[in-house]
């Protein structure tokens, strides 16, 4: 009985391995990365298992409106270097699109620069600047964490607002989407 049990397990394993081998094979009909897209149609044959992919087998990135800004910009969850890198990445696009945010004389680029400078020097605070780019004596400096999170949220919000605006701006136009 024990012998029969062992044989069954061995056969099962062999079958499973054979199946996997067949699936991993670089044959056109196989699916090497297991994303559900056959190798022949898979433009990204090495996506990490479990990644959401499109019809061509490549990773589907969330649109700017699908990004979870609170999560992405949390220093506690991601670390300050990651948050400021996210800020820099999205702010570059916001700047190129002419939608960069500015608050109290400080552009978002200046927030990012302030955080990076503090990280290099080990400073804990970011000095806020006036419209001439000089330290604003009327405003208290903010913590590096606060500045990093603000820069990150500003960068993503600017692009999200731009994307939303493409579909809803007409709602404010008299004679078009605006009814009164």
């Amino acid at each position: 009985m024990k012998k029969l049990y062992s044989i069954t397990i061995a056969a099962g394993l062999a079958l499973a391995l054979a199946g996997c081998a067949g699936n991993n094979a670089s044959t056109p009909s196989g699916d090497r990365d297991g994303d559900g897209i056959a190798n022949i149609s898979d433009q990204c044959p090495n996506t990490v298992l479990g990644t959401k992919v499109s019809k061509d087998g490549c990773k589907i990135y969330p649109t700017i409106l699908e990004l979870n800004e609170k999560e992405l910009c949390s220093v506690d969850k991601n670390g300050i270097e990651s948050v400021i890198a996210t800020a820099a990445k999205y702010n570059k696009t916001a700047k190129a699109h002419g939608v960069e945010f500015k608050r109290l004389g400080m552009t978002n680029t200046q927030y990012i620069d302030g955080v990076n400078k503090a990280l290099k020097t080990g400073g804990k605070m970011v000095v806020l600047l006036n419209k001439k780019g000089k330290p604003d004596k009327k405003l208290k400096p903010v913590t590096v964490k606060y500045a990093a999170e603000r820069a990150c949220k500003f960068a993503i919000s600017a692009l999200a607002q731009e994307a939303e605006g493409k579909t809803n701006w007409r709602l404010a136009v008299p004679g078009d989407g605006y009814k009164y």
Partner: protein
Amino acid sequence: MLLKIAKTTAILALTACTLNAGEFNAQAEKDRLALVDYMEAKFADPLKNRYTFFPYSTDDELKNNIASGLKHQDFAIGNYAFSKQGKFSYDEIKEMPPYEELVEEGEEIYNNNAVIKACFPDPAIGGDYPYFDESKKEVVTLTSAINKCITDAGEKKWNEKKGKMAILQSYFAAASMDAEKKVDIKIESAEAAAAYERGKEAYYTQRGYLKLSCATCHVQGAGQRVRNESLSQLLGHTTHFPVFRLKWGKDKVANGLGTLERRMTGCNKDQGENPHKANSKWMKELLYFMAYMSNGMNIDGPDIRK
């Protein structure tokens, strides 16, 4: 027979051209008339229509400060069209406006600068800008035209927001008002119509961290109060520039005058956005749209604002 065919063809071609030229501004004209209707409806009887147009205004404001029964041309003087208290102070300052000497200085600049005079032989051009340059396929503002004129002659370009630029433009505005000119913006091609549409989209799109569009304050918000200021309306916004703002001129009178670009940059900042450059395509197209909305209105500049 051949002559008849040629004549008919020529007439048909001419008719087609005329129709096409008329069609390019069809949407803009529809927008302009809808804006006039909206503003006239809004200020017909503010107290009666408070729930539609003035949901946040107090009884006192609606009864004592917001004028009623306003018509199209009334809006040419900005928020003083409806703000009774503001109009009272405005009328007093207008008796001896602080920009008078600057207009004279502008006239001197004009008369003593052969280059400027050659580029702008008629100074009464306040209602003709911005226009769409069909050969370069871009919007030309009065500011960009002046700077092009002087840089083409080898001079250094002027500050686009204040100083000589605003001072010269104040003379152009005064000359235009004296000549009873009206805003006369043209859209005569598909490219010009596209530039107008981009300017319109920019005007109605929310911007900055405060999520405000220009329209939030100056269309839907027009006539409402922010702190103690009555928000002016888009209709008639470009008729009175450059303006002398008391806050701009508090340290130095010559700095008090500012161009439309200076004011728009300030609005961008108030929205919480990194302002667009005065000479950018974005700014020029925004001004093109804004000026079209004031088409047919009297030039009433330069003027004074807080």
